[in-house]
C-alpha cells in the first residue's frame, strides 16, 4: 500500500445529510466476489435514470466535476450497513477523501483501511467550505494528512481529527494486518492463559 501524500483537487458538492451506504452503493451491486469495478455503481440510483442513462442534473455527471478527488457531503456520512463496498466504490470512482462533519463509525473504519480519508470538519469550517465553493465552484483545496488540515484556496488551514494510529498507517503505507500478525505470540499466550486454545 503506497503512503498517503498531500494532494490538491476541486470538490464535488453533494450536500445531503445522512447519506447512507445503500445510496453510496445499492445492495444489488453487492453480488460480486472482488473489489474492482464498483466505481461504476457509485450512487447508482441518484446517478442514472431508470433506462440507465446518466442524469444530467446529478453532480457526479457534470463535466466540470470530472476528475475531482474530494467529495463534499452533508452531516453524518456513511450510516447504515458495514459494506466495505462503499469505500471501494468511492475509491474506484476516483475519490481520495470525503468531507463531512461526522462519519458513521464502521464507514470511517472501512474508509481508512482503503486509503480513503474521512475528513470531518467542524460545522463552522464546513459552512465556510460550502460558501467558498458557492463563490468559486472551481476552487481547489489541498488535503494535508501530516498536518491534519484541509487547506482552502486562500491558504487557510482547517483542522480535522484522525486516529493517530490510522494516520501513521496511512502516511507510511503500513499494512494493518501485517502489524496485527506481529502479535501472534501474544495472541497464543492469551489463548492459553484463558483456556481458549
Amino acid at each position, binding site marked *: 500500500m503506497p503512503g498517503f501524500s498531500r494532494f490538491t483537487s476541486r470538490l464535488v458538492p453533494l450536500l445531503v445529510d445522512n447519506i447512507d451506504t445503500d445510496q453510496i452503493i445499492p445492495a444489488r451491486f453487492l*453480488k460480486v466476489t472482488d473489489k474492482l469495478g464498483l466505481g461504476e455503481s457509485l450512487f447508482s*440510483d441518484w446517478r442514472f435514470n431508470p433506462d440507465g442513462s446518466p442524469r444530467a442534473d446529478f453532480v457526479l455527471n457534470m463535466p466540470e466535476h470530472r476528475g475531482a478527488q474530494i467529495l463534499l457531503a452533508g452531516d453524518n456520512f456513511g450510516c447504515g450497513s*458495514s459494506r466495505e463496498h462503499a469505500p471501494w466504490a468511492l475509491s474506484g470512482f476516483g475519490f481520495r477523501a470525503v468531507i463531512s462533519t*461526522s462519519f458513521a463509525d464502521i464507514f470511517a473504519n472501512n474508509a481508512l483501511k482503503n486509503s480513503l480519508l474521512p475528513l470531518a470538519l467542524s460545522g463552522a469550517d464546513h459552512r465556510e467550505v460550502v460558501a467558498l465553493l458557492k463563490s468559486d465552484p472551481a476552487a481547489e483545496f489541498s488535503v494535508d494528512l501530516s498536518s491534519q488540515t484541509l487547506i482552502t484556496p486562500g491558504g487557510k488551514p482547517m483542522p480535522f481529527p484522525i486516529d493517530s494510529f490510522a494516520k501513521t498507517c496511512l502516511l507510511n503505507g503500513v499494512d494493518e494486518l501485517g502489524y*496485527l500478525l506481529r502479535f501472534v505470540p501474544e495472541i497464543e499466550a492469551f489463548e492459553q492463559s484463558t483456556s481458549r486454545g
Partner: protein
Amino acid sequence: MNAPKAKTLFQKIWESHVVTQEPGAPAVLYIDLHLVHEVTSPQAFAGLRSRGLRVRRPARTFATVDHSIPTGDPAVPLSDMLASRQIAQMEENAGWGGIRFFGMNSTQRGIVHVIGPELGLTQPGMTVVCGDSHTSTHGAFGALAFGIGTSEVEHVLASQCLLQRRPGVCEVRIEGKKGPGVTAKDIVLALLARIGVGGGTGHVFEYTGSAVGSLTMEERMTICNMSIEGGARAGMMAPDDTTIEYIAGREFSPRGAAWDSAVARWRKLPTDDGAVFDRSMTLDISGLSPMITFGTNPGMGLAITGPVPSPDQVADPARRSALRKALEYMNLTPGQPLLGSPVNVVFIGSCTNGRISDLRLAASVLRGRRVAPTVRLLVVPGSQAVKAQAEDEGLDGIFKSAGAEWREAGCSMCIAMNGDQLLPGQYAVSTSNRNFEGRQGKGGRTFLASPLTAAACAVTGTITDVRTLPS
C-alpha cells in the same frame, strides 16, 4: 480506597479481551465468535489466500448464506448467476478454511443474527463480530457484538483478533410498561425518533432500566438489533435468568460442569452499582403508541396516530431540507395523517422481526382474517428452524389461508438482493430495520413498523393502528 472499581458490562468484556496494546495504538482485541456470510466475505478469503495465510482458529468461525439466496420454492434452481456464484464461493471458502458451514440445504441455516442465538453460539461475555452491521443483535445476551468491514473479516480470519479503539458507553435507561399493541420494535423506533441516526456515534449502548428486565430474549434482540440505526457501534443488555434460560440446552451451549462454570461467570457480568457511563439517557415507554416511520431513515418515525411532520416547522435548514427531500421521495404531504394511506406490500421477516415470537404476533392478527386484495404479504422466517417451529404450531396455515406468501428463510425483502423486491413507487410496511431510499427495491418506499402493525396494515391495505382493527 482499595475496593475494586465498579465496572460496566462493556468494561468487563472489553478488559478481559484485550490481548495487548502498544502506546498510541489501538488494542488487540480477541474475538470469541466470528459469523460469516456470502456477501461481505469473498474478498477477505481472497486476501488471505493472496498472502498465503490460513484461517487461524477455524472452530471460532461459522458461515452461512442468507443475503442473496432465494426464498421461493427450493426445488427451483437459482436463476441469478451472480448470487449463485457468491453462494458457491462461500461454500468453497468455508471448506478451504475448515469452517463449519450451514449451506442452502442445511436445516440450521438462516439469517446470521437469527441462527447465532438459536444455535447457542452467542453467549454472554463473548466478543462477537460479523461483516454485517446488525451484529449488534447479539448484544442482547450480554455480549460485545459489532459489525465489521471486509478488511476486518480478513483480520479476524487471519489472527482471531481485531485492532480496536475503545468506544464510549452510553446508558439507555428504559422505564415504564408497554401498553396494548406496543412491541419491542415500537420501543426502539421511539428511541431512534428521539436520538436520530447519528445519536449514538462513537458509543456502545447499554440498555438498562426496569422495562429491559421484563423483555423476552427475542424482544431484547429486536432492540439491540437496531442500535446501529442510531449510529451506535453495539447495543448490549446485562444477562439475567431470562438469558440463561434461553441459552440452556441449545446445540452449541455449554453442558455439564462447563455449563455451571459458564453460568457462574455470566452472573458476574452485569454492570456494578456505582459504575459510571460516559453518557446517559432515559426513555419512558408508558403511554407509547405503536410507532411507524414516515421518511427515508429509521430516525424519521412517529406515533402511528400522528401527522406527517411539516418541514416549515423545522428551524435547522439542513434538517428542513432533509425532511423535505424525504417527504418528496415518500410522496407524502406535510400534516397529512399516515393512518389510511395505501399500502401495496407488507414484509414480515428480517433479523429484526423474523423470529418465532414475531411470527406469532403477526399470526395473532391474521388468524381468521384475510389480506386485502390489493396487498402482497410476504412472511419470511428468519431461519429454517423458525420456519419449522412455525409450521409445527400451524402458523403457516394461518398465513396461507389469510392469503400470504409463506417463504423459505433469508434476508429477502429486507435488502432486496435476491429478487424479493418492491416495484418503483410501491409502498411497503416492513418489519425490517432500514427504510433508506431504494433499500427494498429501486424506487420502493418503506414504512418500518412492528409485526403487529404490519399484519394489521396487510388486512386493511392501508396504514392501520392495530389497536383499532375491527374484529
